[in-house]
């Protein structure tokens, strides 16, 4: 099975506190540590496991800049066979539809049976996979937490509310967005990264992809971020202050009053 996995480079929220910059038009990006979107690691792991079972190859693709190459290398260190970097100044300011348009062009340059995305990325949009599928006229299933690989038609499980699982049959080629927990993504060490450090990763521009620059990027975006702000927190929590002993004493009083201690 030929599998394409879309991956996004995102700020690692476990490593960073997210702050708004002084102009209020972006987050402070200077000191951010970046990594692969959490969901995408599950997608790549699943793709590798499928190929281990039924054969084929895994290609990882990202729309980004030079620095995005590192996330492709990381996923290749996990075991993806090929990387593909889609990069062009014309891509800047794309909305979700713009990103999906660029990815569609890359899909059409290859021959893939299965395309995977993460269920969502750092902005919680959960949009690119479903858009890409509709553009390609492929069937789509989101929040997939189980795949039984097969030719022609596959059984997939979708995670729905309450932890229940919705089983579907889906024709290939298709697009699946992968939910966390579907597998346990393998650990990638420094050695693994070193092994793929010198592998050539092809770069494709808008013209390589046959994309009209007007169809992507800021100009084409119907959805635009205007500014960032910190919302009015309302009353928020009463923050307990003082020494640890004082805080614990206050907390225990509250717990007693609210029925939290038996």
């Amino acid at each position, binding site marked *: 099975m030929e599998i394409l996995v879309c991956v996004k480079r995102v700020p690692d929220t476990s490593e960073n506190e997210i702050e708004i910059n002084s102009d209020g038009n972006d987050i402070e990006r200077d000191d951010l540590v970046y990594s692969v979107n959490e969901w995408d690691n599950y997608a790549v792991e699943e793709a590798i496991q499928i190929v281990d079972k039924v054969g084929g190859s895994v290609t990882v693709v990202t729309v980004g800049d030079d620095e995005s190459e590192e996330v492709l290398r990381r996923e290749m260190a996990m075991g993806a066979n090929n990387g593909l970097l889609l990069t062009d100044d014309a891509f800047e300011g794309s909305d979700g539809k713009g990103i999906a348009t660029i990815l569609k062009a890359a899909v059409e340059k290859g021959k893939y049976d299965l395309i995977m995305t993460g269920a969502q990325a750092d902005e919680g949009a959960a949009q690119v996979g479903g858009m890409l*599928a509709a553009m390609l006229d492929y069937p789509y299933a989101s929040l997939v937490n189980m795949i039984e690989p097969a030719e022609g038609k596959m059984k997939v499980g979708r995670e729905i509310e309450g932890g229940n699982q919705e089983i579907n049959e889906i024709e290939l080629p298709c697009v699946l967005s992968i939910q966390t927990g579907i597998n346990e993504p393998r650990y990638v060490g420094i050695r693994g990264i070193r092994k793929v450090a010198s592998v050539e990763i092809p770069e494709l521009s808008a013209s390589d992809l046959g994309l009209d620059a007007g169809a992507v990027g800021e100009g084409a975006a119907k959805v635009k971020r205007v500014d960032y702000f910190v919302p009015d927190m309302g009353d928020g*929590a009463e923050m*307990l202050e003082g020494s640890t002993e004082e805080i614990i004493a206050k907390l225990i009083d509250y717990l007693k009053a609210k029925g939290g201690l038996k």
Partner: protein
Amino acid sequence: MADVFAYIKHADGVADDSALELFVAAKKIAPDAPVTAVVTGTGADLDKICGEMAGVYNAVWKIDNAALAYPNAEVVRKALVNILPADSIVLLPHDTFGMDLGPGLSIKMDSAFVADIVGFDGMDGATLKVVRQEFSGQVSTHVSCDTATGAVLNIRPGIFQYDDSKAGGDVTDKSGDAGDLSAKRTFVEVVAAEAGDVDITKSEVLVSVGRGIEDEDNLEIAFDLAEAMGADVACSRPIVDAKWLEKSRQVGTSGQTVKPKVYLAMGISGSFQHLGGIKGNPFIVAVNKNAKAPIFQVADVGIEADILEFIPELTEAIENL
């Protein structure tokens, strides 16, 4: 202004909470614009839901078809594309169904898509300004959306609480316009979640741990605290994804809905999917090392601390009472 539609989610003859929340949300876009509920399904359940919605929405469009008995997003999408005017503004809940349907629907209707909307900030011509959150609620953004050729708007569940407002209207049967509903994805069945060894939905006091617990071995301190308090241990999703605790202990939209008296959120950031599983307005205590963690917006009492140090000290103090 374009026509506004809300997709009504329902199952087993019961409308989802989002069904009426979308009415409230739609009125925030334009208070005077009529809003039409679109209800798909089949049989008596469908008629019941249509009747309920007609008491609230300005109009109801009913699409009755056996292929819609279970809401398969691909089939629903086809029906909507065939029935809705091309420049419609369509509201969906941002849940597992809306995520499945919304992005693709926006492509097929050639309209803009905005996910997980938590607020509206006015319409200027065809430009709608909405509020979103990024990085699990650490920052908010204003986003402008050009609705000139229509828009699909996924609305975060639980934000636009139903306020008993109503317009009222008639049910129109649009089933004949649904068109070809064949699909390349077919629904097979729903497999219910497995029950675990504890039933946290019955617990009065929960010690709930999130990614802040950092390591599987550290779970012990949470169990020790729970034992001292007479509480049960629950958790956020990453703890279950890592297989450190069983799924039945997960609180949230894709886990359990709990109704405790007291909820201790330990190293949990406070994502809406997690908070969506906490009902009954419990007394929430949040302990987090990041003073800006969104959980502090919803907690009653907050403590800025490292849980790995704080939890053992709290346990000891309770044991010494």
